[in-house]
């Protein structure tokens, strides 16, 4: 994902954010592979599991969702999905899970390898599917599973009861991991990790908020790549530094009137959902060719892990996008749309992700109304290439463009 380096292009500037972010993402894998070779324990970790825990303990972890996205982006998704299906896994199951369970069996994917797990760190704050997926890994490899259960929050605020439940689990998992891995928790180290994660989050939020300028100093598809670092490495010092560089570049772009979005920015949209990794180029070109820039996504807000203490951290992890109720999810998106002068909403109805897509029609209707913008959806899948139709995507994007155009014309008439 992050390290997508094209041979025909000149070598990227090692001081650029793109290079730095790509390196961090790539190092995560090489470091884990090297650790495994040294005989260290390596875990597999859910993307919204509190990274502060493995980071503070000094544990090596890999992220199956990130790996599955990488495999899918490089064309291996269907191969591995088929492999999982031949084992008896239904193709209704999230494609990340199918790819990961297949990888557990085949143990090799040239698109993106990573070490086999010695333990798994699971957190269901993004979906319950995660629990079943990790149970299956744990049972198959006969390894320990550490679950931080963060139930879906039906309310706008996170209740004290939930924070307490989450906090107790954090400590339980920390102590169990200390016992299993022999590594020790240090409050000092935690403070440091918290600061790094806070800095990376602040820089990320500020960088993504540069889309408030018209034209936006960046192409929103950049975010889909860069966020890999926010997922996997936000507790590392280098992540904050790279994000700071990203912010600096976006500010410079704005000042110089440039952008990573090539061509004229005629329309500005919010993209809802996970990227269609196998169809990244197609989905991006479909927008770019029409002068449509995706200026924001919920990811811009999703990694705001800014907190001052342990309880604040618990609350933050109980308030990630997929664990929020419809009203809070809606309001966050409305704010992003308004702050970034969004003119249309393009929704990826993602067959893999029930929780994300399951109330999207109602929520996007409400967003469209609140912002006075058109909403159009297309069917796809983040990693199973078979669930996407180029023709449908093209028609829908064209439709969205026409609606935005009509909206613009209407406004000018007034």
């Amino acid at each position: 994902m992050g390290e997508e380096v094209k041979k025909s292009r000149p070598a990227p500037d090692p001081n650029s954010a793109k290079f730095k972010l790509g390196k961090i993402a790539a190092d995560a894998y090489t470091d884990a592979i090297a650790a495994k070779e040294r005989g260290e324990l390596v875990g597999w970790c859910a993307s919204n599991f509190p990274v502060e825990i493995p980071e503070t303990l000094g544990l090596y972890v890999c992220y199956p969702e990130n790996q599955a996205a990488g495999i899918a982006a490089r064309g291996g998704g269907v191969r591995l999905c088929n492999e999982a299906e031949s084992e008896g896994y239904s193709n209704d199951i999230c494609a990340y899970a199918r790819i990961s369970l297949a990888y557990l069996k085949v143990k090799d994917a040239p698109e993106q390898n990573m070490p086999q797990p010695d333990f798994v760190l699971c957190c269901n704050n993004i979906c319950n599917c995660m629990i079943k997926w990790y149970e299956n890994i744990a049972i198959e490899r006969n390894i320990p599973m550490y679950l931080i259960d963060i139930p879906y929050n039906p309310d706008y605020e996170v209740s004290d009861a939930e924070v307490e439940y989450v906090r107790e689990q954090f400590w339980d998992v920390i102590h169990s991991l200390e016992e299993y891995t022999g590594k020790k928790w240090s409050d000092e180290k935690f403070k440091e990790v918290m600061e790094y994660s806070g800095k990376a989050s602040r820089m990320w939020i500020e960088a993504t908020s540069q889309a408030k300028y018209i034209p936006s100093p960046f192409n929103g598809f950049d975010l889909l790549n860069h966020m890999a670092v926010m997922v996997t490495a936000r507790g590392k010092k280098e992540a904050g530094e790279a994000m700071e560089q990203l912010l600096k570049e976006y500010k410079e772009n704005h000042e110089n009137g440039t952008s990573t979005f090539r061509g004229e920015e005629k329309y500005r949209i919010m993209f809802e959902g996970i990227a269609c990794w196998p169809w990244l180029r197609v989905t991006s070109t479909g927008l770019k060719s029409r002068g449509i820039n995706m200026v924001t996504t919920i990811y811009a807000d999703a990694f705001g892990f800014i907190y001052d203490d342990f309880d604040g951290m618990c609350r933050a992890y109980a308030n990630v996008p997929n664990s929020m109720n419809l009203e809070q999810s809606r309001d966050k998106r409305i704010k992003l749309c308004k702050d970034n002068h969004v003119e249309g909403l393009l929704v990826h109805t993602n067959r893999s992700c029930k929780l994300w897509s399951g109330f999207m029609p109602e929520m996007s209707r409400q967003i469209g109304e609140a912002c006075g913008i058109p909403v159009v959806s297309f069917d796809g899948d983040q990693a199973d290439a078979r669930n996407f139709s180029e023709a449908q995507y093209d028609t829908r994007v064209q439709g969205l463009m026409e609606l935005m155009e009509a909206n613009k014309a209407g406004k000018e008439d007034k």
Partner: protein
Amino acid sequence: MAVKELFAQLHEIAENPRAQLDKYLAQGKKVVAVAPIYTPEEIIHSMGIVPMGVWGADLELNEAKKYFPAFISAIVQSILECGIRGDYKGVSALVVPSLCDNLMVLGQNWKYAVPDIPYVPMSYPQNRKPAYGKKFCKASYERVINDLTIATGCKYSHPALRESIKIYNEHNAVMREFAELASEAKISAVERHDVFKSAWFMLKEEHTAIVKQINEELKNGPKADETARVYVSGVLADAPQLLKVFDDNGVKIVFDDVAAESRQYRTDCPEDFQDPIDGMAQKWANMDNCSFLYDRDKKRVGMIVEQAKAHKAQGVIVLMTKFSDTEEFDFVPIKRACEKEGIQILNIEVDRQMVNYEQASTMIQAFKEMI
């Protein structure tokens, strides 16, 4: 009453939940709908409210499609469809637990699709056994009590909950006994199912009274003579036409791990807690062997194999509710365990819009030949 009449009575109720709802409403009772898979029914019952199960229905989806994409389980979609159509009119609230992604999105859509019936969330902990899990579970129960008090005006009290827990425990025991007796007795798949399904639409004390009589009749009645014996697992086995395929082909359901059936009755609530809500949290902690409950050791898989063997089942049939991903994940380890033990296993995909059972019928016939 003869056993056939008792079955007929329960069949009538299983087929006409609306009549039951109207009956309770006419008696001046409040009724609260409870969604799959588990809800704290004892608490609802103790408040003087009738909890009635909603597991969707076999109908065409129209309105629900405006809310759900196609890949959400048809159980959940049809619950919403029924809600929008007004099938639950008169119900004071819908309680939905946080047990899978399908259910979570049901709750969110419900608020806008059926605004006149309040949505009451029940957030269960998945780390059920540690003290902190029980504490969170208790807080969630208290929230349900609070929400239901607002929705119905009914009040909660400890003594009433103690009583309801006894009623539910007795019902559990009677249902467990029924499942065991049905394993050897001459009883059709449809009749067996009616006993389980009707439980969702009756006050448990009323259901207990009838099933007790059925159990007595079964003890003395004729024994099963089918040669093909199968164990059934899944979320739901609620398609009369599909069950008829079992009956027509002489395939006997000897025991089940169906969420809407036996899974409901495995665990009693301890009665010796000073605060009965703590007892309810302990019950949750004691529950296991279900795809909707965190199960690191996949105890459910071993249990299925054990129960199948104990009831002399020659095969396991999984009725897989399409898009119920929790069940779909468990299928692979179940399949492997059965194969290891030399137990044949068959996976039949079902949903709420099945009109054609020919394929299922062919599969069941072929399976019978194999076992």
